């Protein structure tokens, strides 16, 4: 029997959060953590968590599993369970709405702040804008972000200043547009980032890289933004 310890909090009935213990019979199968949660929800339907695609592309089910952020649907028990014990907590650093559901408003606000859309002030051609395969390759490792917030909520700098530091996810997207040969708003984008918080709160801790379920590297993207800022301002 797998011992599962889950963070519980229902603001309507609980004055404070607590950890609830469950036992799950996995019958020796190496299930995904999400499968275990579904089994638990059948035992206790009041358990709240988000999920959608169950294949690691929608980014709904970011969670803290045995101390490390990840997506429950693509994390096998064998990757996280230690001593037959699984501890599930909500993503750290964001307000808890209920149980494992966090309020992601601040995370989305930071995403919106970097103007996450192509800006191009030239008239659009009748067909597509051309882009060489080499220029397109520059977007690889950037556009794949699924906004699961695993990285930003693993980042101490984001914990301290979630209202001011854009965070690894938002900055990865900021660089996705800076790196796009079709975007013409580089200067405008950079001028919005050149304050002591937005980019420069990154201390290179690299928790973001360690937890990203898509294997992306926000720290490298942040480094590239700094290089652009430097090149632009000196």
């Amino acid at each position, binding site marked *: 029997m797998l011992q599962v310890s889950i963070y519980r909090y229902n603001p309507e009935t609980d004055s404070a959060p607590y950890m609830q213990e469950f036992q799950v019979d996995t019958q020796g199968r190496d299930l995904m953590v999400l499968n275990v949660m579904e089994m638990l929800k059948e035992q206790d339907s009041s358990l709240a968590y988000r999920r959608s695609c169950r294949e690691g592309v929608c980014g709904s089910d970011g969670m803290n599993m045995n101390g490390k952020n990840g997506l429950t649907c693509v994390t096998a028990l064998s990757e996280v369970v230690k001593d037959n014990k699984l501890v599930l907590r909500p993503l750290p650093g964001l307000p808890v709405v209920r149980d494992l559901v966090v309020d992601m408003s601040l995370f989305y606000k930071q995403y919106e702040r970097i103007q996450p859309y192509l800006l191009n002030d030239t008239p659009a051609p009748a067909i597509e804008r051309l882009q060489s395969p080499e220029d397109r390759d520059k977007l690889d490792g950037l556009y794949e972000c699924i906004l699961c917030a695993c990285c930003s909520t693993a980042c101490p*700098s984001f914990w*301290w*200043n979630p209202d*001011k530091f854009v965070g690894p996810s938002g900055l990865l997207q900021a660089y996705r547009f800076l790196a796009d040969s079709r975007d013409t708003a580089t200067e405008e984008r950079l*001028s*919005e*980032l*050149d*304050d*002591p*918080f*937005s*980019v*420069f*709160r990154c201390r290179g801790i690299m928790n973001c890289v360690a937890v990203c379920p898509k294997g992306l590297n926000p720290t490298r993207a942040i480094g590239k933004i*700094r290089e652009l*800022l*430097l090149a632009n*301002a000196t």
Partner: protein
Amino acid sequence: MVNNITNFSRSGLSDWVLQRVSAVILAVYSVFMVGYLLLHPNLDYTTWSGLFENTAMRVFSLMAFIAIAAHAWIGLWTVATDYMKPTALRLGFQIFVILALFIFLVWGVQVLWGA
């Protein structure tokens, strides 16, 4: 753009550059000092003050002091904005650090060029 008025330069980039440049100055100064001390195992007061009679050494030292002040200010300002959430505490701490760094700097100048 996040507004702020108490950081060094109002720009994250120049703070970032300054912190790195000052770090390099401090590293060079430290290496020089350690090397100097190793080469002079029986260092006495005359030799030591002789070193600081040299104008180049005074300028080098002053540069290091300024670097320390800038480096410390940027670092401690960051620490304050990370961990000190009550405004009065944070602002008080920042004023204290500025005053302290200013006094140390003036004191340093006095030591270098004083009697």
